[in-house]
């Protein structure tokens, strides 16, 4: 187990290097001038531009810039942005928010997706199954922002159950609505996967055994079917949590949640390469760590792959 973890962590190194390299290269290639974005239509004095370019090594060749960045990264230094703020600080400032949002969304998604999936699986081939499919797909088909704006208006403004925007209310009240929207949107895949997996498991011989033992249908499903049905779902769940961390730009904007997504979009708009790469690095790391956790969790759920 420890050995496995060590090996996995070693495998992360090339991925982190590769991913940062790609993003670094992409931001480098991106048209536009980071310094230009600092003031908008009124350009900065030439001298200031020169100073900034110098201070941030913007005129160095790409590989040198990348090398410097990686050197810093190894020492845990993500660099500073154009306003002199440490990038790591900027990210860490927002990471808990994003994390809270992603986690909440993920848990809700789990609840919704599993519920619908299990329902569909148990009603396999019958009307309920098709109803579950249509239900999830409709949410898949309506663009996220429509759902978000609708939910915001109804629950935030008209009913006033929660603040429609911002996180002043703190967790959980400020996060429930956006998380729910994210969850509803993302639950389709999970529901389908759960359903398919459950249908497979329901056909398994060991469920026959369970029924032949005279167990009640509830016990058969909750005690024997679900855990097995979860095995293929777990990988997906881990990946989706990682995905949610980076993928909530729209929801963050609509609900005014100061998360990584917003920071990232601003950084991209301003072509702040170091910030962008910093975020990407962070997200890649988070993704990899989750991936590892999922695989370890796998071992807990499925004793056959115990490591």
């Amino acid at each position: 187990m420890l050995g496995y973890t060590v090996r996995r962590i070693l495998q992360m190194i090339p991925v982190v290097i590769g991913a940062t390299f790609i993003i670094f290269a992409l931001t480098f290639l991106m048209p536009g001038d980071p310094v230009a974005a600092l003031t908008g239509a009124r350009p900065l004095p030439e001298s200031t531009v020169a100073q900034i370019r110098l201070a941030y090594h913007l005129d160095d060749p790409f590989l040198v810039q990348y090398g410097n960045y990686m050197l810093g990264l190894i020492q845990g230094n993500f660099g500073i942005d154009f306003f002199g703020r440490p990038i790591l600080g900027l990210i860490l400032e927002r990471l808990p928010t994003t994390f809270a949002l992603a986690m909440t969304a993920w848990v809700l998604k789990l609840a919704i997706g599993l519920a619908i999936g299990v329902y569909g699986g148990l009603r396999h081939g019958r009307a309920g199954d098709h109803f579950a499919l249509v239900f999830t797909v409709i949410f898949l088909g309506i663009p996220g922002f429509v759902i978000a704006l609708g939910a915001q208006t109804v629950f935030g403004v008209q009913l006033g159950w929660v603040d429609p925007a911002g996180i002043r209310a703190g967790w959980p009240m400020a996060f429930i609505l956006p998380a729910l929207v994210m969850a509803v949107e993302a639950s389709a895949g999970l529901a389908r996967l759960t359903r398919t997996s459950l249908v497979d498991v329901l056909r398994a011989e060991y469920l026959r055994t369970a029924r032949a033992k005279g167990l009640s249908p509830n016990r058969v499903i909750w005690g024997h079917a679900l855990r097995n049905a979860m095995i293929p779902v777990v990988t997906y769940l881990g990946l989706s949590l990682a995905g949610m961390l980076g993928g909530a730009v729209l929801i963050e904007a609509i609900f005014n949640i100061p998360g990584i997504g917003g920071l990232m979009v601003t950084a991209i708009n301003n072509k702040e390469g170091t910030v962008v790469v910093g975020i990407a690095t962070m997200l890649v790391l988070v993704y990899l760590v989750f991936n590892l956790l999922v695989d370890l969790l796998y071992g807990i759920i499925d004793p056959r792959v115990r490591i």
Partner: protein
Amino acid sequence: MGTHQLATPAANAATDPADDVLLRVKDLEVEFNTTRGIATAVNGMNFEVKRGQALGILGESGSGKSVTARAIMGILDMPPAHIPRGEILLEGEDLLTVTPKRHRQLVGSRVSMVFQDALTALNPVHPVGRQIGELYRVHRGYSRRDAKAAAIKMMDRVKIPAAVKRVNDYPHQFSGGMRQRIVIAMALALDPVLLIADEPTTALDVTVQAQILELLKEQQEERNMGLILITHDISVVKEVTDQVAVMYAGRVVEHGPTAEVLNRPGHPYSRGLAASIAGEELKGQRLPAIPGTPPDLLNLPAGCSFANRCSFVTDNCLESIPALETIEASRHIDTARHSACFHTPKVLAHVNV
């Protein structure tokens, strides 16, 4: 010709003291809804098992052996399966009509089942001890600890070495033979009166097969259980059972004491089956084989379903279905023989050609 009813073993058994009969299956039919139509997997099945008796059910793949067993256990997937008619009487109670609750009480404790493939029959994510113990918890309301202790005892009983140590292991950590023993332990846990073993050794190799059969036989005799042993394997039937029912295309075509039926088969299919054993004397010759393939269950022929593979076939066979009739009545019911063929005498006469 509508003579399915003629002198079924069940009918004869009615004269015997009823308490001796553990299970009586009467005119059982099982159909499957498939996309291509309705498949009749079991088509008028009749047999009975008495206390302490071992009944072998022989028959080729797809003849409905497992479906029958599952119907008894009430674990058919319905849909697609449904049981249009028939009765399954366990100690007088019709398992098809009792309430679901009563059914759950009976199944697992009065009648239990050993499955063919132990690896797939055991839930991979629960320790075996828990899977055995669950029976005690559900049926007898044992505490977690007591259930575990009982599970260990059961594992000991089926000769799993170091049961105490292995009770928390998972199925995949056991070898095939041990897994099968665990499944048997599960089946025997609540001292059932009837045990159904559906091909318990097919997935095992010969040396382990011998161990398992030995175990089954031993437990059956020890507890005076009824045993239904389902298999393809004639030698296994010979080894373990007293009575044998030979199935073909969803019905019993021959029924009687094992030795009798296998040495002197009265139905062409049993005859083919018995002959296909590759005895040493056949070395260098062609093996006697039953030609052809079994009929399509979606579209059973009007007449005898074996007719298209039968060397005794006559026009009669193609038109009507021969009933299972008593061919050698006997004072003692256990030695009575039944066969469903128009040509039973001819077949019997042909024996040992």
